[in-house]
């Protein structure tokens, strides 16, 4: 649900960033606001987790791994750890950079 509605946020950003030079500067001001940063952070964090879990599914669809309960458990944990690392990077990108 978060991802579905964050599409609207990103389309609005794309619209504003491309409409005119003034609205492009408006987007830059938007990124400096902590509440706006939090909305972007939440959307990107959800997207990072979803993408990593999705790539795990694609790898499993190709039949890599032994398709056992144990490999399912291990790859789920790997996906979770990779997602946490990516979300940490997203946090740095959105709030600190």
């Amino acid at each position: 649900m978060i991802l579905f509605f964050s599409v609207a946020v990103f389309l609005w950003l794309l619209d504003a960033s491309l409409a005119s030079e003034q609205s492009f500067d408006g987007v830059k001001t938007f990124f400096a606001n902590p509440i706006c940063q939090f909305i972007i952070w939440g959307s990107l964090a959800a997207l990072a987790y979803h993408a990593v879990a999705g790539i795990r599914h694609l790898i499993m669809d190709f039949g890599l791994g032994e398709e056992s309960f144990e490999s399912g458990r291990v790859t789920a944990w790997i996906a979770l750890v990779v997602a946490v690392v990516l979300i940490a990077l997203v946090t740095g990108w959105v709030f600190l950079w």
Partner: protein
Amino acid sequence: MVTTVTSLGRSGLSDWLIQRVSAVVMTAYLIFIVGYLIATPDLTYTQWAALNSTLPMRMFSLLTILSIAAHAWIGMWCVLTDYITVRLIGPKATILRIIFQLGMMAVTLLYVVWAIDILWGI
């Protein structure tokens, strides 16, 4: 429960393939855009507009929004037909589910139209 009338591909196998192809397109676009924004920290309006008005970039962006639409349609359909069911929440489930599904489809199609308007309006 007749669920195939609202699924995107009208077949589970077709939906399965569309879901994976669209996932690959979106991942490529995500990596490209994030990479571009990190590589260009002092991005100007002129650069950004020039990038997005080239035909290959417009095609890539359009392909991505179409992938988002198909992927969201299939994903939301799965969730709605799994959880808003008569067995789980009672006899009102069918009407409730169709309302949510039609709402989701309307929003999805509006996203596509909006994206086309943005991309070809630069």
